[in-house]
């Protein structure tokens, strides 16, 4: 039997200057230890949904709970159990990898030798230990992505939000990141992940929601989505079939 860790109920979000809702009556449930993929074209509402779940912006209406807690009552408790890996390299470029990680780790209440050990161990796992004392602005895109990931998982979060964690990185870095995420998941971390890499999502996610224009068009395991779509051989076929071929340039 599985337990839900995220419950989203009739969620709406409309930005002040926007004509349409970015998130339009979304409801979904994420079970514990799932790797839940939010897939959709540009401007579909993935990042807006993730931003609300991370507590960065407030919904226009609707409710959601993380680990049965809500931000209006238990913001600090939620923040303790979630990890966030934003799409940007959310790191200080003039600090070294280690200085960045020691700082962000300390913000989760980690300190001293434990934090130091954890930082070194994770840097080593992701192939960055020898660069730990180099400034971030000297790192390649792939290296920055890996440090960005470490900064979000040092405190062993129960739920990890990842906004396109492999965008703009080489195949090697992507593999290291995905392997590490799988290991985290195997240890009990629930992962909510957005991506444009459909083949990566097909292999990586245990469940997927295809989003467009702020709505969920389909939800299920990758295999169920493929088999449920006529003439679909992979997730890309499902995606095109559901969201169409029209360009989605959004401002």
């Amino acid at each position, binding site marked *: 039997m599985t337990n839900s860790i995220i419950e989203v109920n009739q969620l709406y979000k409309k930005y002040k200057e926007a004509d349409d809702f970015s998130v339009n009556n979304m409801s979904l449930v994420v079970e514990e230890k799932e790797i839940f993929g939010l897939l959709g074209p540009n401007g579909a509402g993935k990042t807006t949904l993730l931003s609300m779940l991370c507590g*960065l912006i*407030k919904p226009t209406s609707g409710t959601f709970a993380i680990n049965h807690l809500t931000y209006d009552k238990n913001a600090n408790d939620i*923040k*303790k159990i979630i990890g966030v890996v934003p799409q940007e*390299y*959310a790191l200080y470029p003039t600090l070294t990898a280690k200085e960045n990680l020691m700082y*962000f780790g300390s913000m989760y209440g980690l300190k001293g030798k434990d934090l130091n050990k954890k930082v070194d161990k994770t840097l080593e796992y992701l192939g960055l230990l020898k660069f730990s004392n180099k400034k971030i602005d000297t790192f390649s895109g792939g290296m920055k992505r890996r440090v960005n990931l470490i900064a979000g998982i040092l405190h062993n979060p129960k739920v990890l939000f990842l906004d396109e964690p492999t965008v703009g990185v080489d195949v090697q870095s992507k593999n290291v990141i995905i392997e590490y995420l799988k290991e985290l998941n195997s240890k009990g971390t629930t992962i909510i992940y957005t991506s444009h890499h459909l083949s990566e999502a097909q292999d990586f996610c245990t469940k997927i929601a295809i989003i467009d224009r702020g709505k969920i068009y389909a939800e299920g395991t990758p295999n169920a989505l493929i088999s449920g779509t006529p003439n679909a051989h992979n997730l890309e076929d499902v995606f095109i079939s559901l969201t169409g071929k029209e360009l989605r340039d959004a401002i």
Partner: protein
Amino acid sequence: MLYKFWMTVKKELLLLQRDFGGLVILFVMPLVLIITITLIQNSAFKSLSENKIPILLVDYDNGSISKTVKDNLNKNGSFSIVSKIHGIKLNETSAKEAVFKGEYQLAIIIPEKLSVDLQTKVDQNVNKILSGFGVTDSANTIKNGDVIGQKEVRLYFDPATQMTFKNAVKSAIDKMISQIETQSIYKTFQDQLGESNNPIFDQKSFIAFKEIVPTVNNKEILPNSVQHNVPAWSLFAIFFIVVPLSINIVKEKGQGTQIRLITNPVPYAILIAGKTATYLLICLIQFLLMVAVGVYIFPFLDLPVLDVSGKIMLMMNVAFFSGLAAIGFGILLGTVAKTHEQSAPFGATSVVILAAIGGVWVPVFAMPKVMQYVSHISPMNWGLNAFYDVLLRNGSILEILPEIIFLLLFFITTITIAILYDKKKRAV
């Protein structure tokens, strides 16, 4: 929580340490500023007292008044009288032309028969008074046709001349002429009363003035340009922290590190406290460096020494609260601004405006009435007054308490607005 605070301070210090340009702005530029301004102001004073200003004098009078004006100008030591240009004797037209071309700052034109007419006018007035008492004989009484019209000494100033210089010259000449007039009246009375050889009037000024300055241990505290400049420009430098601080916050938004910090279980107050503590430390170091320059470097530059004996703790107090006010403003600006292009120019310009209305450049009493009221809203005005209370008015903690409270309230208000704005923005 204390550990999170300490790590935030450490992070901010590391960020500053790695930003060489920022460090130069924070520490070197204020020192350059304070030395440059004080040297310029001091040399301006010196040039007034040591280098004589040439002024054109066209003397159509050739009498006692023009002689007195010349003597007084020569005695003054600040001016040298020029009556010929390229060997040609000046007249009103050539003098006016030379001044309006900017070759000279001032021309004085003493009209024809000024001395004679003044004496005649005085004679008439004295006679009128004495005849009223029946003292004078009828031979000296005025005839109707002898009415003397008002005379004027004409002054031509280079249009580029500073108003303060103009006013000083005008008042000096006015004083000279008044003295001459008074002396003529006394002398005429004596002559009319037949006491020319035995003066009955003491012609020296009865009322003199003496400047009384505050004293400490019976020693007079004489304000000098350094006592004014160091606190004023230190305050200006302290407030310039607004620029790097607001850029620091805008950068965090751009880099995405703010997203990480908001999603961390750390109160926003700790993040603000970390920044406040770090930048406050910078402000105090900046201030101490500037005071050190005033005390130890200025004497080597032939400038007066900054006297801080027994006042340094009070001055540190003022610097501390001024720093808080500046930091509050910087945090608010950084929170509201979206880009560096918004925060940096706005920060720099607003500090210059606050300094201008706060009295850093022009004393508040010399401002127009409206601006004098406006000056009260500038935290730099509160800080400056507190520094002057300590340095020039020998004030104690009680005297500077109101200003300190205002500075603290300014910090609390700006931080509160920043927090509320940030919260509201997150709800969009």
